[in-house]
């Protein structure tokens, strides 16, 4: 049975439970499901919202490539990745990744791998909108994210 891969890039919120259920439905061979939810975080109350810009078409294609790589590498039974765009308020969802496997470490590694590559190679850019109404800055890429990605090279 081919491992189902679900990729969506969307304005609206997603439903963690529905996505996990869709991956599990009708199967009794899955032993572990790991989900990662990435949220808009408000450090010290200074943030009003994040604005997520993306490259339509390539965003979906790149995330799909990453999921395929993860499924192959960790022998996953399924992978889901949903990334939102547009204006996202603190406490709201930005991204969801789910990995299913017979074994727990592969599920953890699969979800972790997808997130590391998604952060550094999926074409999304975050701009901050401040609570005081001041013009927002584009979020800078962080070296720690590149380092996280590089640990998967062997």
């Amino acid at each position: 049975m081919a491992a189902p891969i679900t990729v969506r890039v969307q304005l609206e919120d997603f439903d963690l439970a529905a996505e996990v259920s869709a991956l599990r439905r009708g199967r009794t061979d899955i032993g572990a499901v790991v989900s990662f939810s990435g949220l808009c975080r408000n450090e010290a109350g200074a943030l009003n919202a994040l604005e997520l810009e993306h490259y339509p078409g390539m965003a979906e294609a790149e995330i799909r490539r990453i999921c395929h790589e993860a499924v192959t590498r960790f022998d996953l039974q399924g992978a889901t990745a949903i990334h939102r765009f547009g204006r996202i308020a603190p406490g709201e969802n930005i991204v969801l990744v789910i990995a299913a496997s017979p074994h727990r470490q592969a599920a953890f590694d699969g979800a972790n791998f997808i997130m590391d590559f998604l952060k550094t190679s999926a074409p999304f850019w975050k701009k901050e909108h401040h609570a005081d109404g001041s013009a927002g800055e584009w979020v800078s890429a962080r070296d720690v994210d590149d380092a996280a990605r590089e640990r998967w090279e062997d």
Partner: protein
Amino acid sequence: MSTVNLVYFSWVRERIGKGEETLELPADVFTIADLLAHLKTLGAEYEAALEHENVIRAAIDQEHVAHGEPIAGAREIALFPPMTGG
């Protein structure tokens, strides 16, 4: 001369002042690096956007490429800063 569709994102888009455009490229523009050098001759807004070439990322037909990549046959070339999604 060849015609190519260019798309820009994030602060590259903001500094250039547009999200997309179609350009005729001179015959001596073979690679992404050549394209960046050419664009910087088109005005101060391109110079400001592409000043630090080493941080500019490129994609040809929606796949990441290095600056040395030939652009022959490209339908769409995208230029953007390092990604910050997730």
